[in-house]
């Protein structure tokens, strides 16, 4: 997979150099000829980008089959348009690079709503068509010009029930209190969620978090640095907990339930003061599949699709109707359920879209 991507990129760079006159025609053809399998993958890349299908750019693993069964099946049934996947992870830098290179091969990215703010501003995204997509089928404030939240994930923490038999931690203030609750912690290493958690621990109300006071948050975070390790991926966060490396660990909230099950309840999820993160669908500028992608996003908003995504990935629906239809047993794990809603914080995608660079770099400077 990686090699295929690499060869494709190599050839694309060759093609660009050829176009720009930096590489001679003959050398370019020789390159294509030599890399027989690579030209096949370039063709495959073109095929991926052909009209008449929608390519979803997501994070691979389980999400591919979940998106196919929850959204793709219904979408293909309604429109006849198949859904395909690119599972290499649509990070902001990769989307920017794809659009700038002029070779857009994805129609919809499973990204964050703050990506919609950052990349919308710089002209890398298509505006959404709200005559097809329904603004009311998401949380208030999460339907933006260049992206709409389809599901929510979130930052919450889990603790080791055996480490704290006398009274478990219940808030971020407890999480950041190493005197009362000794033991190693884990936080997300690219600032998101970690900054909000520190501010809530410092007494900032959940609805007063933004604009984030970065310095105040970092003071709190560096105070427990000696007892903290940092993770960069969901599986790393999972491993730190189930391998017993930490007594309390921040996790992506949608993974909490499976960790509870896997450890037979030894590690418990605390949803109090969880930070809900709007996962968003965004469309790279000049997407090959055209306007069909808007219908795809509308399909993802439907109640059955939303409930299936929750069952499959643990991501909370944003469509209020879907939330209302969730089973009783699922409510505690749904970040915006009626019971959780008063105790959680909602991420502000606009602040993050405009301040990611400053926040992430200040965070990295503080923890390294």
């Amino acid at each position, binding site marked *: 997979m990686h090699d295929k991507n690499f060869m494709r990129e*190599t050839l694309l*760079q*060759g093609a660009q*150099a*050829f176009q720009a006159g*930096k*590489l*001679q025609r*003959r*050398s*370019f053809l*020789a*390159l294509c000829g030599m890399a027989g399998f690579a030209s096949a993958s370039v063709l495959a890349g073109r095929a991926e980008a052909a009209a008449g299908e929608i390519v979803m750019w997501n994070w691979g693993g389980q999400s591919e089959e979940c998106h196919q069964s929850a959204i793709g099946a219904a979408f293909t049934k309604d429109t006849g348009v198949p859904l395909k996947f690119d599972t290499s992870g649509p*990070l*902001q*830098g*990769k989307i*920017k690079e794809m659009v700038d290179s002029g070779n857009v091969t994805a129609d919809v990215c499973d990204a964050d709503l703050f990506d919609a703010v*950052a990349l919308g501003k710089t002209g890398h995204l298509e505006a959404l068509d709200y005559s097809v997509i329904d603004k009311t089928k998401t949380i208030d404030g999460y339907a933006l010009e260049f992206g709409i939240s389809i599901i929510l994930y979130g930052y919450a923490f889990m603790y080791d029930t055996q480490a704290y038999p006398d009274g478990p931690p219940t808030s971020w203030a407890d999480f950041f209190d190493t005197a009362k609750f000794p033991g*190693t912690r884990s*936080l997300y*290493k*690219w600032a998101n969620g970690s900054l909000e958690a520190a501010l809530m621990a410092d007494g900032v109300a959940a609805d007063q978090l933004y604009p984030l006071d970065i310095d105040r948050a970092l003071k709190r975070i560096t105070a427990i*640095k000696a007892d903290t*390790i*940092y*993770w*960069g991926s969901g599986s*790393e966060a999972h*491993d730190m907990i189930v*391998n*017993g*490396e930490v007594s309390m660990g921040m996790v992506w909230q949608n993974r909490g339930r499976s960790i509870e099950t896997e450890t037979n309840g030894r590690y418990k999820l605390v949803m109090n003061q969880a930070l809900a993160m709007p996962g968003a669908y965004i469309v790279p500028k000049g997407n090959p599949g055209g306007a069909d992608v808007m219908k795809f996003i509308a399909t993802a908003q439907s109640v059955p699709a939303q409930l299936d995504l929750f069952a499959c990935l643990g991501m909370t629906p944003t469509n209020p109707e879907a939330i209302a239809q969730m089973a009783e047993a699922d409510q505690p794990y749904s970040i915006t359920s009626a019971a959780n809603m008063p105790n959680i914080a909602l991420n502000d995608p606009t602040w993050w879209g405009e301040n*990611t*660079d400053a926040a*992430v*770099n200040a965070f*990295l*400077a503080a*923890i*390294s």
Partner: protein
Amino acid sequence: MRLPVNSGWLLVLPFLLLVGGLFLGPILNVLWISVTDPTPGVQNYAQLGSSDTLRRILWTTFRVCVICTAFSVILGYSIAYAMVHATGPAQSRMLGLLLVSFWISVLVRTFSWLMLLGRNGVVNSTLDALGIISAPIPFMRNELGVLIGMVHYMVPYAVLPIFAAMQSIDGRVVQASRSLGATGAQTFWRVYLPLTKPGVVAASLVVFIINLGFYVIPAVLGGGKVLMVAEYISVQVLITLQWGTAAMLAAILLFGVLALMFVMSRFMKLSTVFGGART
């Protein structure tokens, strides 16, 4: 009539053009970005003077690389010494083992170290069960963890050039030294080690340069606290979109390596280091 250049060059000309287009092109592009993004000028390079963070990251990278290179080369030297003095089948077995470890993916190694030396890993739980320690020894998720992981990865890279250098030594030189009255230690320090110097230098260069670009091992085994240049560049490219800063750091790495090779070339012929013709 003789051509002004060796006609062999014509054969490799297409490949030279490819290297020019596909290798030098992107590198020039990176250099270009480093002085044009977000605005033309040298402000990205000026950050080196103003940002403590960047200087700290570069220093961490340099420190970790130097320590890792030293350990890798010392361990590699011992292994190569043992290999070169082993007889036929034993030597093949050792070479086989070395190559097998060469091929294990970096991710597998990283997670194996966590299982072995992690907080609840095999070593800590054994020591704990034996009553030797009361709290787990923090081997991993810190700079020590990064060094262990990196040295383990780099030892085979150090062994091979040193092994090649040792193999080319005429054994009679050592006998001659002993027969003229030198002790074993004297023979090693004054005859054997100097003869293997090109191998040691080659190993050090290769290990150091590969170390500079390490990404996965520091990111995982460092627990987020050992931030090296490669990971920082990746964050600036993918997450914060500060491509100018990323390109500047990449350029600094490139110039650093070139400077290192220049300094080395003042002390010895680099072509002998890399196995070229000895003149």
